[in-house]
């Protein structure tokens, strides 16, 4: 991937998140552009099953709900990770991030996440044999791509607290 990256510092201590992606299900129209933008940005391919967020749609009643990492203060995923430095925190955004170079694909993080019942917040990427999750596009100049593509403001990038 040739996306221009901005530099980031890594924190090894668990500090609170600085930013999160806040969701408004009432504004979600179910178009799922966010999923595709996410997978194209991170994986270079268009695929909802490799997206780091998930839109659940009930098309009969027009109800949509967004599933995305909450960047928990006490991230169970990180605590469950058995490999040193396979998960880290970006200092600028506070994003909880999987280091794909070090991930051994054990899946402990995905099982530990209390919000991952649909296996859509922390997913397995079979192409790379790693687990993937939202990293707040911490190396992207304009912030999270999903927020930028959302046509109706259902996603917003906000300070934590």
């Amino acid at each position: 991937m040739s996306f221009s990256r901005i530099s980031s510092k890594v924190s090894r201590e668990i500090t609170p998140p600085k930013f999160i992606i806040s969701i408004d299900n009432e504004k979600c129209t179910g178009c799922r552009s966010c999923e595709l933008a996410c997978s194209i940005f991170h994986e270079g391919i268009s695929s909802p099953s490799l997206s780091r967020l998930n839109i659940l749609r009930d098309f009969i009643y027009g109800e949509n709900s967004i599933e995305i990492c909450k960047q928990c203060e006490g991230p169970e995923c990180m605590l469950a990770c058995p490999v040193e430095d396979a998960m880290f925190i970006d200092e600028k955004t506070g994003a909880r991030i999987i280091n794909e170079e070090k991930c051994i694909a054990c899946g402990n993080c995905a099982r530990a996440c209390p919000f991952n019942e649909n296996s859509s917040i922390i997913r397995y990427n079979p192409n790379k044999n790693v687990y993937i999750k939202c990293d707040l596009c911490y190396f992207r100049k304009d912030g999270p791509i999903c927020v930028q593509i959302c046509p109706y403001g259902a996603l917003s990038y906000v300070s934590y607290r």
Partner: protein
Amino acid sequence: MIGGWVGKILRIDLSTQKISFEDTMKYAKDFIGGRGIAAKIAWEEIKSPIDPFSPENLLIFMTGPLTGTLAPASGRTIVCGVAPQVYPTPWFTRSNMGGQWGSELKYAGFDGIIIKGKSEKPVYLYIHDNEIEINDAKDLWGLDTYSTQKMILNKHGKDVKVACIGPAGENLVRISVILTETENAAGQGGFGAVMGSKNLKAIAVKGSGYVKIADPEFFLELCLAIKKELTTTQHIPIKPSLDPEQSIHGQRLQNCSHSCYVHCCLNHFYKSVPGIVSPGINTGQFHCISPLFPGIPNTYYDWNPGFRGGFEASVLSNKYGINQWELIIGTFAWLRKLKQEGILTHIDGMEIDLNDPKFWYMTLKKIAYREGKIGNALAEGGPRAAEILNIGKEYIPLFWAAYGYTGHWDGRGDKINPIFYPVWIVSAIQWATDTRDPFSSSHDYVAGVSMWSKVIKWEDIYKISERIYGSSKATNLETPYEYKAQPAIWHQHRSVLKDSLILCDWAFPRIFSLATEDHYARIETSKGVIEGPLIEYYFFKTVTGLDISKEELDKITERIFNLERAIQIRNHNRSRKDDEAIIPYFEYEEFFVGPLGKREKLDREKFKKLLDEYYELRGWDIETGRPKSEKLIQLGLKDVALELKKLGLIN
């Protein structure tokens, strides 16, 4: 790397249950996808006029290279085959639907499905990650489209996408649709009945695959730029909101197609509208033609069964799987006319009264189930019904333009779209030379000029015309019969491109804009400014990675259009005479009074001269309206030229 296509087309013969696969790239480089590939397949495999309900008819579902990508409204699918709605002789044509089904088919590993034959018993297909199941549909047969989808989702999972038919398709209603979700439908052509004739109730798809993007970085940049550009139009609200008064009906924001960031139908979803005739709650999308079910005061469609009654009728037609456009612009408007003229006052003892929700409800039921003599006739579509019942034939041209299709953006048949003279002269050329109502994928000129002329100055429109068509006469009010073949051809090719990539007709091509000073659409990118009409080309190139020039892409669209014409010539002896059959319809006075202050009608002789010009520009013979052999060869259709020549159909 080649992106866009996922590589395989699935073939299923329902008679033998034989399944096979074909390499998409065999067709893709010359015919792109969608409508283009379908035309190539039809040329090879539908070699004579066939009964649309015979097992040999093909039902082709085809996506395009942009389907399933982030390109706006990329969830669309083209459906092609010999269409039972076409009157008097069913022939090969196309329809197209939104939703999310097309994307999912690609994630499941297929660019398209070609269905042939007829199953002995009702079946449905379940296609998931390269696995194909032909399953018993005993429990689904007879169910409406909502229930069919719910049953399949319960069985195979909530993420499955389903395209299916309702009772109308099962009962071979010639105006029946293939529907996905609550209102997305391949509506025109009667393809629901083709599916019904094959005993195929539904096609469910689920995939965890992906679509490759050749240049993901620039593609994302293009998508973000076009997202911004899409909110600069005048006919699409920038930010539609919910109406507090409609909260009682559970109004919701719901989009129509996968990856669509256009706002055209967002606030047209209602999730809890109480039924009037039947108890219970109705839910669904209520867009495009649907708001005409309850009627609109001070328009031609001023009937009034009330919002709830109209909504109930709209949802019911989607559940039965009947073509809403045909119902409103055709069937129901014609029935009201018959009542007004005293020709037909009752249907099976029930008075024709469009203010009565029960009349809508019962008539829809009669059509879907072919109940009674009149219901059975209406199920055949308007022109056939008039013939069968031997009534109201003289009023058919008030509503139906040609080929068994009701009018659309022509100033006559549909009496709601504000088109005026001389804009409909281009419409007349497009109608004359197509195989169906051209405007489900060609709103660009007819709606564009009609609607933008109310927002921006004519001078700006003339300048943009000069830029894209080569002359301001293409839109000039003072030159009605000059320079109209050029825009007709330009837009016919754009329609082919949209239907082959596939992109949404409401979103492309980008021509006019409120964001630029000269009102010509353009976007800024890191690779420079891209003019509005070139956006599709850049999408195609960025996703597929093919090194192709703009001229080459234009040539492919011209090739596809000529191939469709060749199918018509070989299978139906199509000629100029058939094209001119549209003239009497346009000799009726237009419905709206345009900016010139009076109602106009078509001048036959001047129009014939325009047709001369059209054929000449196309490289077609003026006498016969058929492509010259050298034209076909120049377009890379040498085999087509040889076959037509051998049959003595062209020189």
